[in-house]
């Protein structure tokens, strides 16, 4: 290869690998440096106990960028989906569960009016989500520009909104900052239906259903372009995505090094000169892409001294307090959820019986306490994928909210009682589940911060809301992937368009690097 210094990518999560693969395919020599002993970031499959593996952090891929799938030939590199188009099953404490897909209510205890309203609602939301989705595949608009071509994305955003037509444009602008609670009340009667919808606005965020911005977070989730996949379950767990990405990247020549934690990003003469590893090894590079969170990248690895004062303050104050925990269980046999048929057990189970329940689950997080009546998104991937565990054994994977990173009194003393409370909650919906329990793993945001190197343990690196989205993600002035020190780029979920195992940030960042000729 050439003598030119390599491009260094910090972090072998999905975005880091996506960026690395694109750059290598464009002819760059790329080294990926991963702090953990395994690659994959939060899209990983790890052993829970001998012979049983699970998607320990992220467990579904509702937003995976189809361009990434295609460009990087992930199918050829072994990515197979055990299920696509997963349905939602709203667990009903009082009886029959509600089953719905992206367009229709399929069954459940709701009236005809709600059936019709859901068709109207979901069509409209998809239409609005497409406006956002269209912004995701490119660097976000700039608020100020001095080259006319930089004005184009802003004009496109305006045009995309305008093209909705007068009625829908007004509606879009009316609802985009609203609380999802108020919006679902405009459409529906059924508490169970409302609870299921609002929950999808809340995963990974520090927001309740009555928080502003939650229509936006709902649209963000819908904005994934992979309509043909829907909510998909990779065979082999989420690690299958990052393994396929790693395989594709390696084929293009990327050198992926695990157990290589970056301690410092070096600057000399006003530009990036390389990185220093924990071991003390220096890896020279003129271009560094970081998929680590923006605070870690800019304040810990680079250092505020290389940034302007107000900019450093904006990064420092960017909100990113994780409130999402993960519970992974190994069970003897299939769990039996009340009101859920065995066929539906493999779908996406939502524990959020009403919008008020979801909002009240959030309340304690504001006061640094955990929810005693939490919301959960539950999957039993082994229904579709027995590569994860022996046939007599099943994995239950649950995203749990709310469990604030900054818990009063700390997690060390609270985690045992929190875990017991979660199991009791599950027991009420799936009687006997505790007798089936062989192994349990709880990851609090504190664990996510420590084991997966995310400041604040936030699911999306930084809170996802309009004040930290598009041209404001991670903060105003840094939204174009290029950081102020020449040669440094952000390529992770803390950059536009954000989190949710999309790979879009990595792809966009790589394109910007190539555009710069860096």
């Amino acid at each position, binding site marked *: 290869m050439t003598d030119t210094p390599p491009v260094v990518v910090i972090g072998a999560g999905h975005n880091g690998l996506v960026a690395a693969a694109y750059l290598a395919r464009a002819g760059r020599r790329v080294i990926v440096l991963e702090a953990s002993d395994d690659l994959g970031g939060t899209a990983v499959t790890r052993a829970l106990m001998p012979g049983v593996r699970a998607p320990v952090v992220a467990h579904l891929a509702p937003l995976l960028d189809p361009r990434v799938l295609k460009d990087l030939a992930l199918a050829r590199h072994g990515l197979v989906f055990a299920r696509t188009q997963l349905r939602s099953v709203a667990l009903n404490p009082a009886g029959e569960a509600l089953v719905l897909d992206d367009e229709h209510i399929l069954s459940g205890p709701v009236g005809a009016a709600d059936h019709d309203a859901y068709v109207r609602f979901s069509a409209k939301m998809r239409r609005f989500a497409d406006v956002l989705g269209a912004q995701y595949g490119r660097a976000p608009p700039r608020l100020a520009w001095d080259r006319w071509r930089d004005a184009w994305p802003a004009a496109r955003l305006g045009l995309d909104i305008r093209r909705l037509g007068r009625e829908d444009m007004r509606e879009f602008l009316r609802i985009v900052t609203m609380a999802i609670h108020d919006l679902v009340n405009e459409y529906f009667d059924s508490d169970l239906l409302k609870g299921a919808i609002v929950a999808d606005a809340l995963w990974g965020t520090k927001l309740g259903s009555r928080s502003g911005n939650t229509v936006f977070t709902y649209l963000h989730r819908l904005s994934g372009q992979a309509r043909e996949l829907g909510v998909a379950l990779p065979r082999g767990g989420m690690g299958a995505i990052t393994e396929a990405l790693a395989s594709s990247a390696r084929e293009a020549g990327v050198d992926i090094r695990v157990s290589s934690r970056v301690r410092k990003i070096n*600057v000399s*003469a*006003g530009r990036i000169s390389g990185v220093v590893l924990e071991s003390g090894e220096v890896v020279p590079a003129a271009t560094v892409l970081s998929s680590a969170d923006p605070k870690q990248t800019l*304040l810990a690895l680079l*250092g*505020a*001294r*290389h*940034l*302007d*004062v*107000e*900019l*450093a*303050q904006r990064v*420092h104050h960017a909100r990113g307090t994780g409130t999402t925990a993960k519970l992974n269980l190994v069970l003897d046999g299939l769990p039996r959820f009340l009101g859920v048929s065995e066929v539906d057990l493999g779908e996406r189970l939502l524990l959020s019986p009403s919008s008020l329940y979801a909002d009240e689950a959030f309340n304690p997080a504001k006061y640094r306490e955990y929810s005693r009546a939490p919301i959960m998104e539950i999957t039993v991937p082994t229904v579709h994928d027995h590569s994860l565990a022996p046939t007599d054994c099943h994995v239950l994977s649950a995203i749990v909210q709310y469990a604030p990173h900054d818990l009063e009194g700390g997690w060390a003393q609270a985690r045992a009682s929190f875990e017991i409370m979660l199991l009791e909650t599950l027991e009420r919906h799936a009687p006997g589940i505790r007798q089936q329990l062989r192994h349990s793993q709880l990851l609090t945001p504190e664990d996510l911060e420590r084991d997966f190197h995310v400041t604040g343990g936030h699911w999306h690196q930084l809170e996802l809301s309009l004040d930290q989205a598009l041209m404001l993600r991670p903060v105003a002035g840094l939204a174009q992937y290029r950081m*102020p*020190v020449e040669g440094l780029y952000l390529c992770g979920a803390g950059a536009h368009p954000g989190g949710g195992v999309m790979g879009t940030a990595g792809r966009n960042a790589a394109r910007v690097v190539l555009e710069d000729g860096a």
Partner: protein
Amino acid sequence: MMRARDHYQQVVKHTPFHARTSAANTLNLWHRWRDYTVSDAYFDVSLEYTALRNACAVFDLSPMTKHRIEGPDALAFLDRLVTRDLSTLAPGRVAYCVWCDDRGQVIDDGTIFHLSQGVYRLCSQERQLEWLARSALGFDVTLTEETHEVAALALQGPTSAAVLKRLGLAGIATLKPFAMATFVLGPTSLLVSRTGFTGDLGYELWIDPAHAEYLWDRLFEAGELHGLKPMGTHALDMARIEAGFIQAGVDFLPADRAVRTDRTRSPLELDLAWLVDFKKAHFNGRGALLREHERGSRYRLVRLDVEGNKPAKDAYVYDDRRRVIGAVTSSVWSPMTKASIALASVAQPWGRPEETLWAEIYYQKELKWGRANARCRVVPGPFFDPPRRRQTPPADF
């Protein structure tokens, strides 16, 4: 003695020299400078100025905002704050600096004293503690405002070195410009820096407020035969315009106070490019200043020699074709150069050295207004810059 909780009853403080300055202020002219009241003039502005340029004069500098910066990252912190390279500023040296916001617009100017290894004092006209605290993210530094803990006098003029020698400050003659040294003075110690705001030979004296009056008395004893006089703000202002020194709030709007973004100025627009070092490590506003350096500035600060004898106060500045291109920010009749002089901010590309511009001066004679279009010459250097300012050892007067 006021109890601490009654501090609000005295809104404006007296400086530690007040007993002496108020006794000397025969005109009873005062104005407010930050937390303190200070003298506009003591007995006659012209005579105070004359003392400054021909003998020496004392100015009460105590209200100057002073911040102490120390800790392992003190140098790195300051070097990121200001546009100038401070890595070569040795202990015992002083540097004039400006600092900018993220847009490369000047917040304030001031002097940084390297008091002892790793311990610095930043003196500025405006309060800066909040900006310093915001700038401290990621640095291991301790910031203390010590405005009230340090009393200060400026002793300026050709006989100032002789006065200090007579005061018994052995070795004062070898003190170079922008150097400082500590001397024993009676019961206390006195920090003397060869700095000032007059463009003349001069010193600034820094002392524990408890010994302020002692210093004043000893200084006037020592200065009796050297023509020492007290000097107020008006005389100082004449001197600083002659020296071409800019003042915050007068010649530029501190960027943190600006509402309208086009009203601020970068160091390059204030003729301070010599203070901006693009080769050193990152400093605040560097990116914006580098872009300005490459693409050109909007404005230029110019020194104008104005025809006639009328000060060009607040005058519009025109080019040869009667287009308004800027305005005067400071102006004075300069007794030393026998000229009406002014500092002005003009739009680029105007203001090149020796260019002819025009000032529209409005003046009043016995309540009747008149207007003059005065030809102005753009002067390349300071109006007044005597060799004695730099000469070491200074001549003995």
